């Protein structure tokens, strides 16, 4: 496999690699409902080089031990490092900063909903920390899977560090000759070298993409060549950490193998963690691209994608079509989960129409850019893209400009409209807290929200997080690591280098009550959406006649009838946001500009349209089956 374009200083006879068994492990709190793409992909890459590799979804064993629902609660709690804290004592022993559990008192209001109702939440968490975690680690470290293994590779993203350090500590204690290599998003940039410096159980780290760096590092180990100087590797040398910058990221993603998830299905099945309906309900992770074509030009201010990994690269449409077919057959699943940051717009022309034409019945999740047209949403829907995450983030064009999102509020709402129309589920949030925003920005958004209850609501509204590598991180004056890091990691860890989440301290912050109405209306929207009778706003149209049924608010239902140019005006603003001047042209001058302005205001006043600076957009969805 042509994955090593750099000259390799370690001349290794491929047969020697057979004597270097590797185990790749994914620890809690990686999601348990689908396999790890990191393990699946790296495992296949190393096998391609001739290394004997086993993957180990050890997160599943922990979930089986403590209960899957409780595990999911902990894995989903990213705002505070409670999941990391559970493994902290086992990771750092006497150096762990909070052996007695002060965290549970200091953040009680945020944690009290955790647990499985069997007993007091504190008692449950303490039992997990003091009894279940050590028992789990003991059993895992004693597993025969480690016999004869030369290298343990840990992939760590979000709250996987402490559990990984804890297992590495036990493995190094029991098998001192074993080499531990860490990688993943938690080891990007200066974080990787700092973990190597501060955590004894970390022998080596791969910093950045591992597809090429990891097998090359293993070759050095096989050949007995020191790892110093290997691009993308951090190691200790005479008490110092030596880090060599990563090589340029991989360009030809078609060269990567399809990930192998067999071990996940075998283990999850054995542990009773597969859905009752069988493996067909497990989403298969896939990676059709890396980086972000938008962020290459305009890095959204809150986005923690690293500069070096921002470069956009995509697999060819043919390769992706083949990969879907291969993986569906292998794992008997029709569900796919794209880990891409943003969909390759070329697929809308070259891949999705093919999936639609072939009549495959996949259910695919993709992250997309929000300013998709109606025709593009239809193409996604026809290709089986049933869930999208479009990064809507705000319904204020001014705030969207502040975050450099590259979309307008009216475009965001239009996406929600056509997604609802074509039956595509949308995952999105409202973010606030951007330097330069005003109270008026939020008063205006809060006023629009009640008109949108016939569209999919956000999962919530919250203050933006400050993530390492984001432009906002650069604007943060103090860069104080998120408060709970200090309950997990010893003082010897320089969190300024190792942390990923930071406290919000941006200048010019609005008072919290500036967002109260927005948060309240967001909750009301969710309630309305989940009511027994889902809100609706539907229009029927014929040239010169529009009827709009407004069933958004119980008790205030009714029908609007518009005829002549007003009807045509409403229909003209339905496909996409449009300016008053364009409306004038479309109507052939049947209304004066002043009448158009007046009509748009009247429609907006009744919540039948939104006006977004120069743009107008009808809110109702066409009646009848999607076309």
């Amino acid at each position, binding site marked *: 496999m042509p994955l090593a374009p750099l000259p390799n200083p370690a001349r290794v006879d491929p047969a020697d690699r057979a004597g270097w068994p590797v185990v790749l492990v994914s620890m809690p709190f990686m999601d348990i409902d689908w396999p790890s793409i990191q393990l699946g992909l790296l495992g296949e890459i190393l096998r391609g080089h001739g290394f004997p590799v086993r993957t180990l979804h050890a997160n599943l064993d922990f979930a089986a031990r403590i209960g899957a629902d409780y595990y999911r609660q902990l894995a989903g709690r990213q705002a505070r490092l409670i999941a990391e804290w559970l493994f902290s004592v086992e990771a750092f022993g006497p150096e762990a900063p909070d052996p007695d559990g002060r965290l549970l008192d200091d953040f009680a209001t945020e944690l009290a909903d955790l647990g499985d109702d069997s007993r007091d939440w504190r008692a449950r968490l303490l039992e997990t920390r003091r009894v279940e975690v050590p028992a789990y680690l003991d059993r895992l470290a004693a597993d025969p899977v480690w016999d004869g293994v030369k290298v343990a590779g840990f992939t760590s993203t979000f709250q996987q560090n402490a559990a990984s350090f804890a297992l590495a500590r036990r493995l190094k204690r029991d098998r001192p000759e074993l080499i531990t290599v860490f990688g993943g998003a938690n080891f990007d940039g200066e974080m990787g070298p700092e973990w190597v410096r501060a955590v004894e159980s970390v022998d080596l780290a791969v910093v950045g993409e591992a597809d090429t760096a990891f097998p090359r590092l293993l070759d050095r180990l096989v050949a007995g060549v020191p790892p110093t100087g290997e691009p993308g590797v951090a190691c200790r040398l005479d008490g110092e950490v030596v880090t060599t910058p990563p090589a340029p990221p991989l360009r030809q993603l078609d060269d990567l193998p399809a990930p192998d998830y067999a071990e996940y299905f075998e283990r999850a099945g054995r542990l009773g963690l597969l859905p009752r309906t069988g493996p067909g309900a497990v989403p298969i992770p896939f990676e059709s691209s890396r980086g972000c074509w938008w962020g290459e030009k305009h890095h959204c201010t809150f986005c923690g994608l690293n500069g070096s990994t921002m470069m956009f690269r995509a697999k060819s449409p043919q390769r992706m079509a083949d990969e879907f077919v291969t993986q569906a057959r292998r794992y008997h699943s029709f569900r796919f989960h794209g880990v891409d940051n943003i969909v390759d717009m070329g697929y809308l022309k070259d891949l999705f129409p093919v999936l639609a034409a072939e009549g495959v019945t996949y259910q695919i999740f993709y992250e997309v850019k929000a300013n998709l047209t109606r025709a593009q949403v239809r193409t996604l829907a026809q290709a089986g893209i049933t869930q999208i995450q479009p990064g809507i983030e705000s319904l204020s064009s001014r705030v969207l400009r502040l975050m450099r999102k590259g979309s307008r509020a009216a475009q965001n709402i239009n996406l929600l409209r056509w997604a609802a129309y074509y039956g595509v589920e949308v995952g999105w949030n409202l973010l606030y807290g951007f330097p330069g925003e005003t109270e008026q920005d939020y008063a205006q958004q809060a006023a629009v929200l009640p008109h949108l209850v016939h569209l999919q609501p956000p999962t919530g509204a919250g203050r933006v997080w400050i993530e390492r590598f984001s432009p906002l991180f650069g604007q943060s004056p103090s860069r104080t690591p998120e408060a709970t890091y200090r309950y997990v990691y010893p003082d010897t860890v320089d969190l300024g280098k190792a942390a990923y989440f930071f406290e919000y301290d941006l200048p010019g912050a609005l008072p919290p009550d500036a967002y109260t109405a927005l948060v309240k209306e967001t909750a009301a929207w969710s309630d309305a959406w989940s009511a027994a009778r889902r809100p609706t706003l539907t229009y029927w149209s014929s040239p*010169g006649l529009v*009827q709009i049924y407004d069933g958004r608010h119980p008790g205030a*239902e009714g*029908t*609007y009838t518009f*005829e*002549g140019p007003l009807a*045509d005006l409403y229909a003209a603003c339905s496909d996409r946001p449009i300016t008053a001047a364009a409306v004038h042209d479309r109507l*052939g001058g049947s209304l004066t500009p002043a009448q158009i302005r007046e*009509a748009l205001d009247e429609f907006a006043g009744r919540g039948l349209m939104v006006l977004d600076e120069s743009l107008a957009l009808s809110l109702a969805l066409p009646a009848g089956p999607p076309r």
Partner: protein
Amino acid sequence: MTMSDTTKRTTGRRSTVVLLGGLAAGAVLGAALGVTTGDAPRDASVQEQFRSAFTPGAAQTESLPINRIVVTEP
């Protein structure tokens, strides 16, 4: 499907394109079929049409998918 998609779906044979009320041409909607604009006089003020546009009442849910609205008086 939009009207312009319809025109693209020809198979090499020149097809007759029917303009429904001028939709495809972007002309004044309604004019091509010579439809009148019903009871609303063309010179009625915009506000006036809005004032009389709303009929309160919940629709029968089952009537929604079909091409007619059934309005029940409150």
